[in-house]
Every structure is written in C-alpha cells, then in structure tokens.
C-alpha cells in the first residue's frame, strides 16, 4: 500500500491528470447550469490532452530536426513529434465541440429563457 502511494507521488503528472479528469467529471455530473457542464466537459478533454503531452516528455532532447546528416540518428536526442501532433489535433477537435456546445446553449437560452437544467426540464413537461 505504502509502495503504491509512493509510486503515485513519483509521477505527479499522472496524479494531476487524474485530479483534473475527475474534477471535470464531477462538475459535469453535479452542476445544473449548462455552461458549467460545458466547462466540466472542457476540463475532461484538457486532462486527456495533458496526459498525452506528459507521457511524451523526453528530458534532454531537442526538436525533431536532424542535428547532423552524416552521423547515424540517435533517437534519444530528439523529442517524438507524433504525440504533439496528436495533441494539436485533439485541441482542435475539443475547440470545435465546445463551439457547437456553446451555440446550442445560446439557442437553448433563446428558446427557454434559462440555462438551468431543472427549469428547462420543467418547461418541457
């Protein structure tokens, strides 16, 4: 048990990921305000992106442009570009989703005059 706790604190980045993810999830589940739900959703997405970045960190490595064309390539000297590209794409996807979500929120507000989930459900009945 103690080993596990020590192992967790050895990797603060994973701990941070778990905290942000669960925090976002908690907001999504407990808040009735639709915009707050979107904030929680964005936290969840961001935490996954954070995880992707944190697993691809390489200490002492440089940008993935070859330092020399004559010597054989040392993979340990260069950062892996792929996770960063994935991260960029995931950020774009997240922003698009958030945009559609905010547009829906605005339309819901115009239609029902409220952003509170319970009030809207009352109107729907």
């Amino acid at each position, binding site marked *: 048990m103690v080993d596990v706790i020590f192992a967790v604190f050895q990797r603060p980045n994973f701990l941070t990921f778990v905290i942000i993810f669960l925090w976002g999830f908690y907001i999504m589940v407990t808040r009735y305000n639709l915009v707050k739900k979107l904030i929680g959703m964005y936290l969840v997405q961001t935490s*996954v992106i954070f995880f992707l970045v944190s*697993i691809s960190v390489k200490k002492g490595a440089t940008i993935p442009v070859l330092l020399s064309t004559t010597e054989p390539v040392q993979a340990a000297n260069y950062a892996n570009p792929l996770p960063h590209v994935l991260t960029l794409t995931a950020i774009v996807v997240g922003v698009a*989703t958030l945009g559609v979500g905010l547009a829906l929120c605005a339309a819901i507000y115009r*239609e029902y005059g409220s952003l509170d989930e319970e009030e809207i459900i009352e109107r729907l009945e």
Partner: protein
Amino acid sequence: MSHQLPAILFLLPLFAAISMPVVCLKHRHWSQPISVAILAAMVLVSILNLHNVIQHGEVRYMFSGWSAPIGIEWVADGLASVTLVLLSVLGLLCVVFTGPTFPKALGGRIVHFYTLILLLVCALVGMVFTRDLFNLFVFLEVAAISSYALIGVAGGRALFAAFRYLILGTIGASLYLLGVSYLYAVTGTLNMADMANQLPLLISSKALIGGLLFMFMGLGIKMALVPFHAWMPEAYTHAPESVSPILASLVTKVALLGWIRITYWVLGAPIVIFNIPILLLVAALGTLAAVIGAFLALAQQNIKMMFAYGGISHIGIILIGLGQGNQTGFAGGIFYLLNDAVMQAALFFLAGVAFCQYGVRTIDDLGRIGKQAPWLTGSLVVIALGMIGLPPTGGFFGKWYILLGALEAGNYVSIAAVLLSTLLTLAYFVKLFESIFRQSSTQLDVQSGEIPFSFKLTLGVTSAAIILLGLFSAPIVQLLLNHALPPGF
C-alpha cells in the same frame, strides 16, 4: 486509377461540403440537387470499388506515400467496401427524403444543412476505411459534431436532446482518446496491423488492459450499447424528421464497425485476458442489449422512441453474432448489421412520413390513419416482417446465420436471447398493428392529399431492399465469408 477509389470516395463529399456554401450562395435551392448528385456519384464509385476489391483483393492506400506504420493507412477490404455501398445508397435515400420534410424553422439555412449532411457522410467514409486508431478518433468526432448540429438544427426540444448527446458523446470521445494514448504509450504505434503484431507479447500489461477498457467504453457510448444508451432514443426522437433516418441507420452502425475493427483486427478475436475470453464478454453485452432494448421498446408510446429502442436491441443481436467466435456467426452478424441499417432507415422514413404527411407521433394516432395511407401501412408490414425476422426478408436470414453460429459454438444462452428478443419485437409490432387495424377507432380527419414522390420512392426502395437482401442472402453471406473475415480467423 482503381487504387485511388477510396480517396475519391472520401474527397467527393468533402469537396462538395466545402464548396457548397460558396456555390449555393445565390441559389439556395441548388443545394439539394447537388447533394443528390454527389451521393449518386458515390454510389457508382463505391460499387466500382467493391467490384475492384472482389476481383483484385484489398486495396491499401497510403497517404502521401508514407508506408504503413509511419503514415496513415486506409484499407479497402471486403468489409469496408460492402459497408460503403450500403452507406452511399442509404445516404442518397436520406438526402432524397429530406426535400418535403424540411423543417420550416430552418428557413434560409438550408445550404448549411446540406453542408453538414455531406460532412457527416465524408466522416463516416473515413471511419469505414481507416486503419489508424487516432484517425478513427478524428473522424468519430467530425461525425459526432455534425450530428450534434444536425439534431439541434431546427430548434425546440431537439436542442436539449442535442446538448445531452453532446455531453455524453464528448465523454465517450475523451475516453476513447485516453484509451488510444494508453495503447500508444504501451506499443508506440497507432497503426492497427502494427499494433496487432505487438499485442500478444504485451497482453498481461495493465496499461494495455486499462486502455482497451477506456476505448471500448468510449465507443460503447458512441454506438449506444446498453448501459450507455441513454442519449440515443431522446436524440433520435426529437431530431428533425429529415435528420433521424441518416443518424439512426448510419452513425451508430459505423461506430459499431469501428468497435469490430478494434476487437477483431487489433486485438485478435479469440484472445483471453485475465481468464476472461473477450468474445464471451462481447456475447454477454449483446445478450443484455438485445433483451433490455426490446423490453424498453415495448413500453414506448411514441413511434420514433419505440423504433430507437428497437435499434438498440438490434445492436445487441449483431454483437451476439460477432461474439460466437466462428465464421458463420461473424458473417451472420455483419449481414445483420447491413440489414439493420436498411431497416432503421426504413423505420425512420416511415416515422417521418407519418409525422410530416399525417401529423402522427404516437401509436394510438397511427391507428386512426390506417386506411388512408396505403404506402405507409404497406411498408410498415414489410419492415415489421424484417424486424421480427420472418422468411423472405433479410432479417430472417441474418438471425438464422447468427443462430447457426451460436449452435456451432454451443452457446445456448445466446440462442435464448435472440429468440426472446425476437418474441419481444413481435410483441411491440403486434401493439402497432393492433392499433392500426382496430375497427372501432375514430378516423383521424386528415386532408393530406397525395403523398410526395420522394416519400413513395424512399419507402418503396427500403421495403424492396429488405426483401431483396433476404432473397439474395446466400450470395451476400458467401461474399462476406470470402472477403470480409478478419485476418487469421
């Protein structure tokens, strides 16, 4: 030329979607004919592609010439090509159907509506072809974002349903992405074939199992598998009549196809993790979905809601077929998937016609228009035969092959689940017909006039397709057995 067909299939709707707002800036009414033309061209190209794949084997398409583990790889194999023919035909029918059902609240935004439909189709094409896990995520999200917008497009109750779908769908996508990053951290690759080569050595890794769990949960939300199905009936019921057929028939089914790719092509089907055979898990989830979905459908009054729950139970039946671990069961499951896509489209066309032409939303109202609507009642009979699974329809043969597969595997719980789900389907269609043929009910006073040609066309073609799929079930299943099985199965 022929090896470019997958890219052409993807680029046709993409370029049409991008150029649509410019081309149709002055002439809004052009947008539907253009979409119909694009999808008709896609039908032709996809049939050519299927012919090419059957003749010369699968086509591997490498983007910008980067070969497989480094670049993004698309593979047009038998399964993808057959699904694409179905996808483009159903997409074409859905676009033809949109004309008279067009929501009035939309007004001048008709061009953007068709742009979104074409974007949705191009994302689905990408999901069918791709063999790259991250590429699958991107297309999953493009398809999902266009469906959120399409559901909410007409305002009203649909807005709230779309918002809930957005929240749940995004949780699903985030879980899927988390799973992909776990698998990437373990294997260092995103290509399905490359990952499949590395997995047998790593099968006891906890990160791998966690990643797979997250991926399956994420895709489970996207395809409305039973514990995660809550968003689906509400979203499809309140979506505009012109949108729900394409969502119900294609979006969930293509997400299911992604799930099949990961289970069979990446994981390798007969694998055992922690003493739990994966296939047993698939069959158990299918059993749960098949029975619970059908029970919930029985309890509904709104016809669209009932059909949506019917779709949930059919996803369960497909999974039962796939979980048997033999070729008959797999081919039966895929054949049932094709059938189910056609039947879902037909059901939602029917619900759309019932509402737009006769203003009917509930089962009781449906009873009151019975005699005035020969097209509606006629196609309902055919669809009911297909949904219940009676002989000359495709639904019967799909279930038949699934049952044969289950017998071969000696899996009697699966057989019982398929039969129980069939009985429940029978029960909810009896409920519909009882209301239609009840003589005492007062006739609804509708001055509906002649129903539009596009309604007749879509109802007629889907009903004919349900029967034709049954009549030609033997060659189609043979084709699936020859060309669509996973490697080493």
